[in-house]
């Protein structure tokens, strides 16, 4: 484009918009997050360490991290499947399914929570049939996984879908004409192209599940050492005015979230490079 335009800024408002952006972000979350981390540093190391290593807290990490990992894995498989079916096949109701995928994103988590527990309770629409096979979902760790799967569902679908749509048919045709079967093409051509998107979606679903509260606390039953997720412990400690304990665990969760954000950014950068 024209060089003169690039040199002199024609478009006004950089100072105003940038100023407001930084001011608003600063006031609403950067300063509060910073102050929170500062508050944690005023605790002695012993207080901090004993708060984050209580047996009940450690049990909650296992459930939160383990449950999120399992839920994200389920979403990786079924999210990829749903994305594939939505992009590649035509069937009645496809548009509706496509729109519904965003539901966990738009439906309040508390509403999802009471809906899931009602469905999966031993008298519920789904729970009563699972009961026959001796499977209990509500008020068990399995229930936590169900809620976390629900909440992470949009992420893999929505990251894989656009990549799959942009995948040129030529690659698959070339692979087929070179004698590859459908499975070989899937494994050697389609899967490598989707890998960055799959991993990004996986990481996003995991990160979202890790911090989730509303949709889990109803179906989990919150039994100490068994179905307590880490965010629940933060809430109960804050309600008992144990701010040190809550802040210590909150810092662990915050650092986990930041690490996930770094991982996700790295993955997106990798995907962008692969795409270019």
């Amino acid at each position, binding site marked *: 484009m024209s060089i003169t335009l690039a040199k002199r800024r*024609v*478009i*006004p*408002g*950089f100072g105003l*918009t*940038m100023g407001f952006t930084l001011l*608003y*972000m600063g006031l*609403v*979350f*950067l300063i*509060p*997050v910073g*102050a*929170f981390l500062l*508050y944690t540093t005023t605790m002695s190391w012993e207080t901090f360490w004993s708060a984050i290593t209580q047996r009940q807290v450690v049990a909650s990490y296992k459930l939160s991290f383990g449950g999120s990992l399992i839920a994200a894995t389920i979403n990786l498989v079924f999210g990829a*499947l*749903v994305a594939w079916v*939505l992009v590649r096949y035509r069937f009645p109701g496809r*548009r509706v*399914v496509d*729109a*519904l995928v*965003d*539901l966990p994103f*738009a*439906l*309040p988590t*508390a*509403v*999802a929570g*009471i*809906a899931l527990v*009602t*469905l999966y309770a031993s008298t519920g*629409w789904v729970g009563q049939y699972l009961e026959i096979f001796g499977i209990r979902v509500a008020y068990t760790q399995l229930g936590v996984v169900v809620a976390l*799967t*629900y909440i992470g569902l949009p992420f893999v679908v929505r990251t894989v879908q656009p990549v799959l749509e942009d995948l040129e048919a030529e690659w698959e045709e070339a692979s*087929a*004409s070179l004698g590859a*079967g*459908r499975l070989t093409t899937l494994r050697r051509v389609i899967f490598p192209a989707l890998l960055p998107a799959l991993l990004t979606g996986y990481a996003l679903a995991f990160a979202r599940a890790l911090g*989730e*509260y*509303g949709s889990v606390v109803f179906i989990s039953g919150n039994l100490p050492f068994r179905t307590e997720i880490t*965010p629940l412990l*933060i*809430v109960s400690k*804050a309600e008992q005015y144990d*701010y040190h304990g*809550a*802040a210590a665990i*909150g810092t662990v*969760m*915050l650092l986990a*979230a*930041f690490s996930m*954000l770094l991982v996700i*950014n790295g993955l997106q950068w990798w995907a962008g490079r692969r795409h270019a």
Partner: protein
Amino acid sequence: MSTSLTATPPQDISSTRWRRATEEPAWIRLTLITLALTFVTLFLVLPLTVVLYGAFERGIGVWWAAVQDPDALSAIRLTLLIVAIVVPLNTVFGIAAAWAIAKFEFRGKPVLISLIDMPFAISPVVVGLIFVILFGSQGWLGPWLAAHDLRIIFAVPGIVIVIAFGTLPFIARELIPLMQQQGKEEEEASLTLGANGWKTFWYVTLPNIKWGLIYGVILCNARAMGEFGAVAVVSGRIRGETNTMPLHIEVLYNEYMFTAAFAVSSLLTGLALVTIIIKSMVEWQEERRQRIAAT
């Protein structure tokens, strides 16, 4: 498996049912569709249905009574008041951030974009905790606030700020890629022709981003009304005072008033449905625009 197209003689193609080498056999397609639909039914359709069924199971009269209950009405009023504050703020923020990021080049842009995403990664419970520790009675600024008779935690300002925090990225995330993709030629043309900045924004930029903005605002609104974890920490759950709709739903559910809980839920579910319908409309609009542009 039939992999080679070229090896098949032409007469065979007309006599037998054949498929392209880049397609799966019908039975595989059917199996995959069935599996995907089962998953979607279990995790999306059934939860949605159970809410609406629970809300109207005992008739529209019972639903209406539950929605008309004074505590429910007060929760609805509070929730509307909060979104009336939060959504405009986050809208201005989203537009400002997208304008700065899409129309200008500056150092650290990727960092700024990542920072805008940050609230999305933080657990809502931690968001609530951050403000309790800052402004709570036992918190850092607690004594000072108490001395000046100001209440933030267990009061409306605290709820407003945690919801603003939690929903901060939504409009910006919609607008940034949209405005980046549209570039700045049209704005430059308008400005060169003598329009001022505000006019250019109003008549050139805004019509271009209209649909993305509408979806962003609706999504931000739905998320703000439905925010639960962060509000649960800061609100104190004072009935008729600091209970938002999701907290009221929790209270009703814990008191075994399931129909009432689902009735209030059905309002938020309707809002969620409107949100995803608008998203689909925006996407169809975009698809049509691209198809027209392609021809």
